[in-house]
């Protein structure tokens, strides 16, 4: 066991996958020579060569579209889009081809690829570098969309995504790359996609979140505990498929739920979670399900991002209000 942060855990997973299967290739802007802007692919080009760890031209649609062709042609590409705000030029390829080829060809062809996308704010980056637009992927039939929040999950879910016979959008919370460390077992290990993780058990209210917001939500739970409120914290990990059973069971028990995400509120994935929960637990609910989210604004630049991002205090305040209903 080695203590690894998320960036290192992903690097480890890629290393293992490249070593194990000669059909695995890594492609993206700057993933090779310089190891990616977050150094997540550091060292891989030296180890596996420029043919398998491919520095691409600056062309996101090309990366995904060419990667798609590679996948149909028998490779297992792990593609990197540098930031979520730069993923949109590839959106057409994702929606119209990656997500559809299996259905279009009734299983004759498939695109077993992974698209890694660093996402989320909190590092005071330039415009477009802080986006959290997972909802534009979760709405697309034919994609799996996952978001690890721990080094273990990052490694296990990435290897599961690479093994998966279908395309997986793999979102990496930028802010957590180096902020969370834990012991991660050596060697191949997979964490099944589609299972939520109960990060902390509690009785009074269920806090539901994913990705970078797990940290703030965990902190909120601590604040709440200090005020005598026992919060259960659930990290979805997988948005599609969604582990609605775990959520439903929890909310039926607590009768209260707060959903936390940093994406804009309107049409964020939290809306889907709220819609499903009211379907499943309406008569268990003692209070309306609340959403604590980014606002329906452009993600602000450095000097204002603290006005935007949900923090532990905002989450705890919402949960407290929910308790008061």
């Amino acid at each position, binding site marked *: 066991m080695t203590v690894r942060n998320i960036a290192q855990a992903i690097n480890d997973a890629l290393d293992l996958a490249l070593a194990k299967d000669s059909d695995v290739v890594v492609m993206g802007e700057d993933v090779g020579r310089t190891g990616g802007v977050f150094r997540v692919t550091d060292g891989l080009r030296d180890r596996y060569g420029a043919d398998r760890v491919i520095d691409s031209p600056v062309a996101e*649609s090309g990366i995904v*579209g*060419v*990667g798609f062709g*590679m996948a*149909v*042609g028998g490779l297992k590409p792990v593609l990197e889009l540098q930031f979520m705000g730069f993923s949109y030029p590839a959106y057409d390829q994702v929606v119209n081809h990656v997500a559809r080829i299996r259905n*279009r*060809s009734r299983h004759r062809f498939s695109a077993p690829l992974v698209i890694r996308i660093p996402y989320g704010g909190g590092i005071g980056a330039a415009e477009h570098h802080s986006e959290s637009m997972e909802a534009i992927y979760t709405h697309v039939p034919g994609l799996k969309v996952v978001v690890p929040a721990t080094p273990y999950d990052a490694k296990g879910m990435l290897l599961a995504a690479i093994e998966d016979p279908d395309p997986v959008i793999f979102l990496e919370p930028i802010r957590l790359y180096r902020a969370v460390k834990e012991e991660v077992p050596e060697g191949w290990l997979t964490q099944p996609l589609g299972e939520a993780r109960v990060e902390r058990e509690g009785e009074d209210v269920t806090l539901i979140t994913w990705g970078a917001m797990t940290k703030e939500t965990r902190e909120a739970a601590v604040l709440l505990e200090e005020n005598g409120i026992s919060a259960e914290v659930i990290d979805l990990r997988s948005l599609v*498929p969604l582990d609605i059973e775990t959520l439903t069971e929890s909310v039926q028990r607590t009768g209260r739920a707060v959903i936390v995400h940093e994406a804009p509120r309107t049409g964020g994935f939290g809306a889907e979670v709220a819609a499903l929960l009211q379907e499943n637990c309406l008569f268990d609910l003692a209070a309306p399900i609340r959403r604590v989210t980014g606002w329906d604004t452009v993600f602000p630049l450095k000097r204002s991002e603290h006005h935007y991002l949900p923090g532990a205090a905002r989450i705890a305040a919402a949960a407290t209000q929910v308790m008061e209903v």
Partner: protein
Amino acid sequence: MFQILTPSGALNQESPLEVEMIRRLYRAMVFARTYDRKGTALQKQGRLATYAPFEGQEAAQVGSAAALDPDDWMAATYRDGAAMWMQGYPLELLLAGRTGDERGGSPPVHVPVLPPSITVGGHMVHAVGLGWAAKLRGESRIAITYFGDGATSEGDFHEAMNFAAVFSVPCVFFCQNNGWAISLPREEQTRSETIAQKAIAYGMPGVQIDGNDLLAVYQTTKEAIERARGGEGPTLIEAVTYRLGPHTTADDPGRYRAEGLTEEWRRRDPLERVRLFLSEREVWSQSWQQQIEKEAAEEVDLAIERAEGMSPLGPGEIFDAMFESLPPHLARQRAEATQQ
């Protein structure tokens, strides 16, 4: 513009193909035209959803596809039925797709042809990926992609060409410049004098050929394929041809183009010049023509029968090819859909 066979059936230079092979490709073009005309007719009877005819482009499609090896990849469009069929895509599946059945997109396992691309431009990058995969896996197959003059305006054309050239991918870009993108004439699509010259932007060879000349198409494509297979990278071919029919059966070309132009192109019919060539060599006869037309009609009719005979997908089946195995939420929705 490179040409071997003139409209009057004479050779400008030596033929790259034996007469017998030319005769077989002529037969294939007759098949293609028969299929194409029946497609239009079927749509008019309401039996196909829409149909995009390729009449006038038979030499471009048949001549180029004839140069492929059986396991070479192909990524083509809604208008490339003849090329796809040449590479093994069953006619009945082409037709099934047009009736509105997803199973039309599922060619047999040995047929290395993607279902036709309906989006314009998006599939050229796929061919680059396919060719590249073959290269990395040490396979000797190459990839060919078919697209129109309109598709060259999409950003994805640019990205495909650039990736292919940078990584010296074994693939061939085969553009059928048929004069129109729906209602937009080629001259307003782009100001470059030829589409072939767009290759210069990528440091790739580009060549403009008479797309209605079976032999020029064959030879040029063959050379490009050999370059690709030999590790020398991609080529752009511009086959200058013409869409004699409407864009699709829903289109009315009378709104945007003069009949005169179409008539002019009819006189450059890609089948006729081969017929003249064969006739000159006394390997064409009226009776043979009737015979192959009959064979073609029978084969197409059989394909139609098979396509229309497929029992429609049930409500549950629309879920069954979304993923390799059904995730829980889809299983629930499937149950909801089928219980109704």
